């Protein structure tokens, strides 16, 4: 069952992504204002949504671990953070590639871009911390605390950068778009969502295998010291 979901999400995600990107590149109409550069939207915007959803999952799992203390919460928190970091990295990279022809620079202090950058650092730190704590229980608790703080920071960073930049804001997503554009965007977004779930499931599986190796099962009551050997 779990295997079927894993393969299913992967296949559906891949097909949808090919469809969404293909249509976005060759079928959707060219944007009147931005020209063909606007086609980056189908690759760029869904990574942002997907990364945020992954971080949200990780945050919920961190809270869940602190309340219920079950290993699955910790595994999901780790997996979603890592997958979120991958999509976050893509978000930054495609954002820069888009920014170069549009604004003439790779990086601008756009609130969304900056927030994405800070989130990348925060979750990079979260994953780095996990590598340095040997005891699995302690690692899970500490990581959960750090994961909660990291996610709580996101909206504060966003608003502080928005104020910092001042109020003249360039909207990078046009408000009025053709229905064809909306379709391609939606296809790509759902594709990445499916892929994200697929990756998280696979990453959880890896985490579980590692944990099984890290944690010895409780020794049987009868075995061990029954007397002199």
């Amino acid at each position, binding site marked *: 069952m779990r295997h079927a979901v894993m393969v299913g999400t992967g296949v559906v995600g891949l097909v949808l992504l090919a469809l969404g990107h293909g249509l976005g590149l060759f079928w959707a109409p060219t944007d009147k204002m931005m020209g063909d550069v606007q086609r980056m939207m189908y690759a760029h915007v869904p990574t942002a949504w997907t990364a945020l959803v992954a971080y949200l999952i990780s945050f919920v799992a961190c809270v869940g671990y*602190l309340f219920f203390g079950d290993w699955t919460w910790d595994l999901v928190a780790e997996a979603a953070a890592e997958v979120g970091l991958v999509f976050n990295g893509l978000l930054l990279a495609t954002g820069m590639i888009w920014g170069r022809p549009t604004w003439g620079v790779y990086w601008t202090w756009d609130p969304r871009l900056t927030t994405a950058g*800070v989130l990348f*650092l*925060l979750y*990079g*730190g*979260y994953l*780095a*911390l996990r590598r*340095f*704590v040997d005891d699995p229980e*302690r690692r899970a*608790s*500490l990581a*959960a*605390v*750090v994961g*909660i*703080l*990291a996610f*709580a*920071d996101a909206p*504060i*960073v966003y*608003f*502080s*950068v928005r*104020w*910092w930049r001042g109020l003249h804001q360039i909207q990078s997503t046009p408000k009025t778009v053709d229905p064809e554009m909306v379709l391609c965007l939606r296809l790509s977004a759902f594709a990445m969502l499916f892929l994200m779930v697929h990756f998280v499931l696979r990453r959880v599986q890896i985490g579980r295998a590692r944990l099984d190796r890290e944690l010895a099962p409780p020794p049987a009551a009868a075995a061990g010291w029954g007397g002199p050997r």
Partner: protein
Amino acid sequence: MTAAERVRQAVTIARKDVLLEWRGRARINAIAFFGVTTLLMFSFAIGPDARTATLYAGAFLWLGLLLSSVLALAESFRVEAENDAVEGLRLLPVDALAMFLGKAVVNAALLFVLALLLLPLAVVLYGAKLDAGVGPIAGVFALGAAGVAAPGTLYAAVTSRIQAREVLLPLLLFPLVVPVLLAAVKATGLLMLGDPMGQVGSWTQLLVGFDVVYWILGSLLFARVIEE
């Protein structure tokens, strides 16, 4: 545990930390001196252009403070890790909330004093102007110090007993306090360079908001960090 008892415990722990900081003042002096050195290095890095220096006085001051704060925060938990003192504290029966408040308040006060020490240096080195009065600037310092101290205390506790803590503490803390840095630098800068649009208030509000969120989160989560 009653609120009064909690406050009494927090005060006892804070008093102990102040005493420890005072006994270890050689180290605190060195940290302050490190802050002074970073401010000097910034002014070397930008060269002799006095106008640039004045323009960014607030930014350099806060960066110097942030860099030295990591050292001060790590120190406040090094003494707890020594001789397993933190385990003794837990067993005493000390409320985790009282422990967090006691330590975080002392750390905030320490960072605040450090900021006040660096202020005259910013005036001398960068030509920062204090026309708006030292009071408002000190207020911004206090809010900013509190904003760094709450997550800083929590993360110092997180990293105090794991490997690679020297690098992990700033790695985790710096991105987290980006909003504090932005707001504090902006507010300090506006106070030093003049505030024609009257924006200091909104930056101060952001600082207050951040402080509230992170002091609450720290209070809630600290228990999970110190229990084993």
